[in-house]
């Protein structure tokens, strides 16, 4: 008559899957690779759940596992040609809807050009809302390093989009302009 503590872990893991998937996709751009990464992360987390300190931040723990898995995969795949079909911009233009406008596609395209460590820092801080200290722990670097990566990422995005002021990020473009963006 065990109390099945696993079922809680299962639920907790399930709750973070959308975040893991979004993080993985912003890191590697490729949907299939991202999904593999998430699955591998879940398996590793399950097998190593005894090393997770209850009460600490599960999302941060899982993100760290995913990140480490991504880095070791990337080292292995270094010489493979990158498949750009699953890129963030491509995904946005395919999914259409609200995000189909030029403005966001440009942004996604610019984001893809950032170095991986800057993408990572920007997502952790800007999108996931982790504290700089948490992100630094997750990435195994100094708080100042995370801060400067975020700053550089913002500056680079701005530069890539040719923005000189907030107004340049203009309103949504009309539908016909989406067509121009679909080659992405």
């Amino acid at each position, binding site marked *: 008559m065990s109390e099945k503590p*696993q*079922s809680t872990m*299962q639920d907790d*893991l*399930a709750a973070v*899957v*959308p*975040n893991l*998937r*979004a993080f993985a*996709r*912003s890191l590697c751009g490729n949907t299939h690779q991202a*999904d593999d990464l*998430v*699955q591998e992360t*879940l*398996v590793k987390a*399950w*097998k*190593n*759940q*005894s090393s997770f300190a209850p009460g600490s931040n599960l999302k941060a723990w899982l993100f760290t596992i995913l990140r480490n898995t991504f880095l070791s995969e990337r080292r292995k795949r270094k010489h493979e040609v990158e498949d750009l079909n699953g890129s*963030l911009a491509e*995904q*946005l233009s395919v*999914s259409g809807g*609200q*995000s189909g406008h030029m*403005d*966001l596609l440009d*942004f*996604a395209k610019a*984001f893809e050009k950032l170095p991986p460590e800057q993408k990572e820092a*920007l*997502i952790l801080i*800007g*999108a*996931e809302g982790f504290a700089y200290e948490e992100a630094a722990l997750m990435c195994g670097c100094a708080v100042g390093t995370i801060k*400067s990566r975020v*700053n*550089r990422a*913002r*500056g680079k*995005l*701005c*530069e890539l989009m040719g*923005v*000189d*002021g*907030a107004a340049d*990020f203009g309103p949504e473009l009309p539908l016909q302009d989406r067509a121009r963006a679909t080659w992405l």
Partner: protein
Amino acid sequence: MADKQRQSDKMPFDKMQIDRLSDTSNRCAKAPLPPEIQGVIGAKLRQIYGELLSEPLPRKFQSLLDELGKSDPKR
């Protein structure tokens, strides 16, 4: 300032870079950015990330978790 000066003495490319960075037409390259631009970048980022987050999940993840639930984590 003195550091930059010393670098540019040694490496002309660094000098060019510094000139480029201090060009007001390219002020985005300088950090930190004005708060309103940071705000817009943050909003765009969250919008894109939000789309990824709200996408329907493939069934495979739940299947995997169900599978894991049946197994002993220690093996």
